[in-house]
């Protein structure tokens, strides 16, 4: 063969990583500048520390109370994780069912779209009444419902957005519905499923915390943040929020990591996605 266009590449070249590190430099610069500016401005102009306390105050606040805050964060994270597991699991199951039995799926789709627009968190008082204010399950339920829809919708989209030629190809091999499902729809649905899971990961944490705003035990992060706000202890409230953010990002990152290892093959997975 004269002049191969592409050399046989061993998969997983390291060249990509170096390039990406350089891409991150502007972001790191901005971060450092941002924190520096924040600290500088609040110190120089003695800005009312109430709404935007100095980063140093927040850090001190966190350090003083790190044990209590960390425990609260873990408690709330467990609610989020539990809700994520239940909600996403059911969402994937529902997607598999609805993709298999398209008729029901078509009928339920408008309902699902409408349900997605409902403020689920407004149901927190009701779940509190069902399971008890102090019971973590009441917040887990909210998180679960929040996770259900994005996961189900995205997974369904993946299962049904297969290139028609792929289906024709499988038919040319005398493949039946099950073979098509197993060999084509499932693998191509994985990237979509992970998009949904990433959204769900973020939503689960938000759902747990905001659910706690409607009432919960004092050792929960949301309750702690709310109390601190109402007592005008903003540094500690921000410390709590920072922690909640960190857990949310870590959760998202964990899902993204799993995504990378299972679907590293997807070219689109390597480009920027937003949901």
């Amino acid at each position: 063969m004269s002049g191969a266009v592409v050399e046989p590449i061993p998969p997983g070249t390291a060249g990509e990583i170096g390039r990406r590190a350089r891409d991150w430099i502007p972001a790191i610069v901005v971060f450092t500048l941002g924190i520096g500016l924040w600290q500088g401005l609040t110190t120089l102009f003695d800005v009312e520390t109430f709404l935007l306390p100095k980063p140093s105050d927040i850090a001190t606040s966190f350090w003083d109370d790190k044990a209590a805050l960390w425990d609260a964060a873990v408690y709330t994270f467990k609610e989020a994780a539990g809700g994520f597991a239940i909600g996403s699991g059911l969402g994937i199951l529902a997607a598999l069912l609805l993709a298999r039995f398209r008729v029901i799926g078509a009928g339920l789709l408008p309902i699902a779209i409408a349900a997605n627009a409902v403020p689920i968190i407004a149901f927190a008082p009701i779940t509190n009444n069902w399971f008890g204010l102090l019971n973590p399950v009441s917040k887990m339920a909210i998180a679960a419902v929040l996770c259900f829809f994005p996961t189900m919708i995205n997974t369904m989209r993946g299962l049904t957005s297969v290139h028609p030629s792929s289906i024709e190809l499988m038919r040319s091999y005398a493949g039946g519905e099950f073979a098509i499902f197993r060999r084509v729809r499932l693998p191509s649905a994985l990237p979509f499923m992970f998009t949904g899971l990433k959204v769900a990961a973020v939503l689960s944490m938000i759902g747990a915390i905001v659910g706690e705003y409607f009432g919960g035990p004092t050792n929960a992060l949301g309750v702690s943040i709310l109390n601190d706000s109402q007592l005008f202890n903003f540094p500690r409230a921000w410390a709590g929020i920072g922690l909640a953010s960190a857990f949310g990002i870590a959760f998202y990152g964990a899902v993204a990591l799993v995504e990378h290892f299972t679907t590293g093959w997807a070219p689109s997975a390597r480009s920027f996605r937003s949901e």
Partner: protein
Amino acid sequence: MAQVAAASPSEERRHRGVARRVAATRAATIVLVLAALWGLWEGYKWLWETTGWTWPFVVDDTTMPHLHDIVGAFGDPATAGGPALIHPLLDAAWFTAKEALAGFLLGAAIGFALAVVLAHSRLLERGLLPYIVASQTVPILAIAPMVVVGLGSKGVEGWKSVAILAAYLTFFPVAINTLRGLKSVDARALELMHSYAASRWHVLWRLRVPASLPYIFVALRISATASVIGAIIGETPASIQEGLGGAIVNFNQYYSLQPTFLWATNVICAALGISFFALVAITERLVLRRAPENIA
């Protein structure tokens, strides 16, 4: 695939007939599904009450009122001798809607403007985009209490803080999706514009923005829902009485006495969320003249 020749008038009439039949079937399926859900609710309630099962939660008229009781609650007076519940609820819904709308419009405008700036400066994009993306994982709703309580103590009216919250929730999806849309332009279309010596302004408004409209509408659909949620949540910690959030807090306190009122409030919340979403979807269909992609 063999390409179909242009449809004749009789074929077009046939197409429209088919479309009408499809719409009718769809409407019928929705009614059927709703009826099935109604049946599921009442069936579950009946079964759990008869057998006395307590998992996952105890079922009685307080935890799961009859659906017809919830519907009936709209006609009951909320306060002794006062108007039927539906009136104060609709007033509250209107109040919350205005907050959400104000925030939605503000956030969309800022998000759009930011995206335009980032689309034109690779450096700014590299510097700011990671934070914009990462901030989507910040529990923004978690800041709600602080913003509303804090600003409230400074004399800022409650509804303004809530609107700011809604704007915050709208701003990020709009910025990201608009940016994506602005950059999604076909390289060849860009070259065409350059061959006309089109100014950056022209390229932006005649090419990039129209090309990014589908992406923008995807974000607007998400943001519509998020604004409503943000408005309701923002009202709750500060107990802004006039809105739906305040209504939830109120009726939550009297839940054991009148459970149906809280449920009725939630129905109105759901209706508000769905209406906002529907408004955006309809606008999208009018602007883009095609069915919106099905899911946010």
